[in-house]
């Protein structure tokens, strides 16, 4: 038999469970090896940045909820901080603590979702169940606080919408030990599992230099061994008052990115415990934040650490009640832009794991 090598075209997505949303890749394969990749995004492009130009400053919070819909609180925070910086608005201390507690809980919820999906991508069904149980517990708490499991619309410019519910202390005291168990369980069942290690170790490696060139941030950058976290490098809110570590990987492969995320959940639990000890009584929203907001003309650029990486907002104001321009730097957008570099010369079977290890949210990539 005379078999010529043939390059084949393989379409993945947009309706494919392993693409974590509506992401499409066209793969050129030579046997099982990927030769070239053409990523297609934009299926979820809603023009969020342009929509912001037509809404008043308070109304935009809901649009930020819908960008990274797995880390709603973190997204609301960076927007509120941008407007506050533009206005020079001080936030009551209690509100800062409430924000930090909710953001760190949201980080755990987001990473648990990631642990669940990377398990599925690597072929393990059980970790998903553990991870989603924990995530559901966090979301029930979010519902008790803000009234919604997702799309909370709870943070306000100058604070938060209202004080925590009366039974919050009991709720969180009940939640934390269970959550710790969930995190530990999903860690133990997956991280050092032999099959999982074989699937992820030395797959999708990228050097620190290249990662910085592609604009990697967050766990993807730290997985390459770069110790960088905005919460430490340029502490915003009250992050300078907590004692926590930055987990760092070694080789920049899929497993390192996974390990960094798992360790970050433990660090977030540490931050939440400290924040609960330190949280003061008092107001939760600045009185200026309740009015119609008209920041002075000017520009700001504000960064924050989201579960997926560094989010930044470039806000241009012309002194009216609506922004002149609002540009979001979404972390997954940059992390995903390296997909071609990561997938070329790897196997088709690994493509799903590599994409999963980047932990993208298409709502944020496409905006």
């Amino acid at each position: 038999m005379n078999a010529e090598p043939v390059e084949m075209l393989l379409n993945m997505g947009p309706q494919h469970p392993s693409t974590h949303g509506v992401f499409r890749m066209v793969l050129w394969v030579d046997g099982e090896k990927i030769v070239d990749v053409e990523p297609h995004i934009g299926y979820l492009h809603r023009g969020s940045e342009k929509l912001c130009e037509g809404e008043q400053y308070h109304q935009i919070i809901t649009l930020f909820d819908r960008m990274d819909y797995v880390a709603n609180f973190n997204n609301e925070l960076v927007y509120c901080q941008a407007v506050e910086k533009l206005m020079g608005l001080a936030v009551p201390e209690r509100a800062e603590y409430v924000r930090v507690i909710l953001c760190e809980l949201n980080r755990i919820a987001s990473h648990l979702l990631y642990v669940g999906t990377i398990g599925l991508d690597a072929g393990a069904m059980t970790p998903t169940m553990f991870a989603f149980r924990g995530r559901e517990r966090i979301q029930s708490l979010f519902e008790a606080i803000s009234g919604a499991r997702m799309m909370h619309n709870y943070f306000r410019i100058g604070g938060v919408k209202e004080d925590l519910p009366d039974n919050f202390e009991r709720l969180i005291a009940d939640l934390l030990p269970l959550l710790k168990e969930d995190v530990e369980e999903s860690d133990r069942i997956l991280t050092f599992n032999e099959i999982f290690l074989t699937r992820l170790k030395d797959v999708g490696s990228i050097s620190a230099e290249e990662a910085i060139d592609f604009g990697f941030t967050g766990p993807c950058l730290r997985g390459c061994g770069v110790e960088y976290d905005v919460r430490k490098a340029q502490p915003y809110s009250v992050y300078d008052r907590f004692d926590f570590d930055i987990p760092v990987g070694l080789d920049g492969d899929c497993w390192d990115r996974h390990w960094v995320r798992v360790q970050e959940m433990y660090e977030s639990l540490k931050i939440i415990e400290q924040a609960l000890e330190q949280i003061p009584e008092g107001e939760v929203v600045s009185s200026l934040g309740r009015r119609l907001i008209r920041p002075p003309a000017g520009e700001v650029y504000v960064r924050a650490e989201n579960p997926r990486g560094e989010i930044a907002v470039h806000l241009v104001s012309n002194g009216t009640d609506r922004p002149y321009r609002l540009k979001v730097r979404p972390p997954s957008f940059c992390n995903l832009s390296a997909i071609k570099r990561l997938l070329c010369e790897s196997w088709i079977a690994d493509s799903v794991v590599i994409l999963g290890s980047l932990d993208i949210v298409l709502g944020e990539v496409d905006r």
Partner: protein
Amino acid sequence: MAANRHAAHDAEAEPEQPDYSVLTETGLRTLEAAAELFSDFSPERGLLSDLPQITVEAAGIEEVCRLAKTDSSLDLKMLHCLSCVDYEEHFELVYFLHSLEREQTLAIKTSVPYENPVLPSVSGVWAAAEWYEREASDLFGVTFEGNPDPSPLLLYEGFGGHPGRKSYPFYEYREF
């Protein structure tokens, strides 16, 4: 309304000297080093809230970025963000560069005319630039000469117009 919409632009055009005391020590050093390094490209110093900002001519943006990335006095290894702002008479492109070692961000600004918005691509300097530039050409119609893949990124092939522009009828919904 029309006068208001230009307010942000007009405020910048004022010759008033910005107050550099808001900059940190590293920020001030970065601003001075950048102004010196880019001296061939008529740099103008400025401030973007508390960040150092340099305005250069659009034609030299690629060399400026290459210098900013490779010169050891700046070390701006990461293209953090590329933002395009439509001021109706011109487009302003803001390159946010970041140095992880120095923990310093520098904003490099450049303008292109509204009628013929063309400038050199920086995708040869940073790999991250390719998608940012494709996004800006989708939404604003800015052409980046030298971008390896000028096809639409967020919009579909054959989409009419540039929805990021102020002139695009964005709020007149069309129902299907």
